[in-house]
């Protein structure tokens, strides 16, 4: 499998000649579904800039009657939610996410290299077990790990979450990276060896640069996973307002019911903004990563 190989242009997107007539219904259906998929987020975005009383008083779609009334728009909700814990939760989420992405990607890269290019007893058996671990539900791990953490007094600390995310993210990371690194031509590695390069040099100077695309898509995966995670953060970092991450903060706000209704849209966007930016800026890598794992690349 070559994770990054671009799709051979076996056929072009716009179906050539002959079936032009069939394009109109296709366009309509596509536009309809795309609109249907966009309306929920669009509504939330509009709501987040409306005055609190407006959010409670009328649906977001009523703004279309009065779109240019600048008095109707406000940043008030954003300033409120940022003051009420979301700025802090944002910092917490950053502190959780960076190591929780970097650690498993690094550890997995070294492991993947060993599985692809080194010889050792048990190599295949261990790797097959890792393939199997990919589908083990996270829920299987929660109770025992929480007990160990309680014993070590690690509960509610960042390292507790970093390592948990590292552990849970590893099977896929090792698997994807090993398949990619293993598909690099062996002549490359051999010639590096003949030139006297050690494994470490070969790995850092040759394999890592060549694997950048797949590492990038993996890092985006893990970033989205960790940033958007609720369960792991809830269990190991907890509900304590000083430490909690954005998703936990948001679920707490959502649990306050009608009283906090006007804050929800802005709060939700604060939690979404970074993943959306990363997602759109790096969509190419992300799609590659998905297709590399799932289908012929």
């Amino acid at each position: 499998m070559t994770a990054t190989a671009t799709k051979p242009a076996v056929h072009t997107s716009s179906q050539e000649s002959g079936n032009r007539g069939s394009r109109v219904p296709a366009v309509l259906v596509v536009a309809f579904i795309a609109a249907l998929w966009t309306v929920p987020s669009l509504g939330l975005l509009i709501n987040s800039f409306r005055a609190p009383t407006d959010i409670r008083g009328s649906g977001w779609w009523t703004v279309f009657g009065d779109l240019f009334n600048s008095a109707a728009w406000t940043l008030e909700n954003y300033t409120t939610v940022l003051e009420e814990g979301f700025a802090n939760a944002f910092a917490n989420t950053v502190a959780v996410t960076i190591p929780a992405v970097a650690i498993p990607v690094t550890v997995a890269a070294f492991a993947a290299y060993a599985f692809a290019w080194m010889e050792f007893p048990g190599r295949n058996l261990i790797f097959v077990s890792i393939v199997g671990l990919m589908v083990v539900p996270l829920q299987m791990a929660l109770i025992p790990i929480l007990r160990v953490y309680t014993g070590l007094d690690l509960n509610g600390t960042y390292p507790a979450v970093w390592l948990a995310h590292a552990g849970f993210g590893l099977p896929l990371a090792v698997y994807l990276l090993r398949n990619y690194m293993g598909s690099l031509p062996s002549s490359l590695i051999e010639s590096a060896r003949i030139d006297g390069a050690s494994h470490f040099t070969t790995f850092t100077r040759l394999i890592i640069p060549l694997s950048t695309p797949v590492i990038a898509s993996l890092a985006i995966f893990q970033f989205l996973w960790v940033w958007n995670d609720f369960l792991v953060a809830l269990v190991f970092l907890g509900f304590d307002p000083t430490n909690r991450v954005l998703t936990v903060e948001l679920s707490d706000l959502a649990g306050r019911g009608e009283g906090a209704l006007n804050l929800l849209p802005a709060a939700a966007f604060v939690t979404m903004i970074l993943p959306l930016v990363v997602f759109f800026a790096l969509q190419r890598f992300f799609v590659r990563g998905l297709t590399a794992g799932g289908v012929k690349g």
Partner: protein
Amino acid sequence: MTTPPVLVETPSEIRRPLSEPGAQSNSLQVWLLRLASALIIPAVLAVFFVTFEFLQREDTNKILQVIVALIVGVGGVWALFWAMDRAITAMPDRLGTAVRPFAFAGPAMVLLGFYLVYPAVRTFILSFQNASGTEFVGLSNFVTIFTDSVYLISMRNSVIWVLVVPLLAVGIGLGFATLADKLGSKSESAAKSLIFLPMAISFVGASVVWRFIYNFRPEGFGEQIGLLNAVWTAFGGSPVNWLQVPLWNNLFLMVILVWLQTGFAMVILSSAIKAVPDDMLEAARLDGANEWEVFRRIVIPTIASTLVVVWTTVIITTWKVFDIVFVMTGGGFDTSVVAERMVTEFFTFGNDGIGAALAVVLFLAVIPILVINIKRFKEQEATR
């Protein structure tokens, strides 16, 4: 939150590693060194983290913590691997060759062992114990979850989720990918981005998004601000509290996950559709097949294995769904699902035994997929 594909179908062209003298040494000394080199990095990390805990308890300076996190996360782990490699290079050649793979792959194995293998075994044992894990109670936790109506409802709902969500997500994704393929490439990628966008949104965030769709105000308590009720009342209906309508409320929750997962299915299926050879399609069209026949007779069979992969992946994501139910209804109004029930038992009721038993049920259900996964992988390796 996204689950990446769990099954892979492409034969990979992975070559055997180059053989080196000493790599297969099996003396006790070598094994001890291997074990040590696998453990050193995790051990150093663990020691550091226990220290970090004090930093976090006593010093509330968030920026400092983030900086330390950054240095450790990005540079620290790398430096540890480098140091390990230096140490091994100082060993005699043959010994170094035998030990080095375990310095490279060992930390991953240790982490996986601690975070997945050990807890899975422990959870199995806990599922046969009482609420606080002090006594063995035989199968009674399993008897409870398979007889008590509270748990049976969760299981019924989970089964409905697994049947409905993948069907809708894959169905809509496939239809969309097929039709979007007929558009110009610019509008195709714009339309695909819109479907794809929810993939960047957390389940919790998505639940908040959909609150403003399902919001309910009883009649006489002001204008409807939920889109669904606004449309419903505009057509003459009286406002409905969607999330409390028995059985249907499950469907309304499932719609949220369909909204999130369709983009995933669509992207993968789209690239599979684009890989269908053009001449096959043209030949069918020349034979007089219409677009529907081309789709059914040529496209579907060609992408069948991708369809299976996508379907399975969405099934697993759906099976493990927890956040949506937790945030939207808290499992009330008969909307509970197994994964959500498990957390509730464990967290809210402190009933570790039942929680573990539910986790085991979650796990047992994916075992067939695990087995297929490994089988496929071995076949690929055998044919490479």
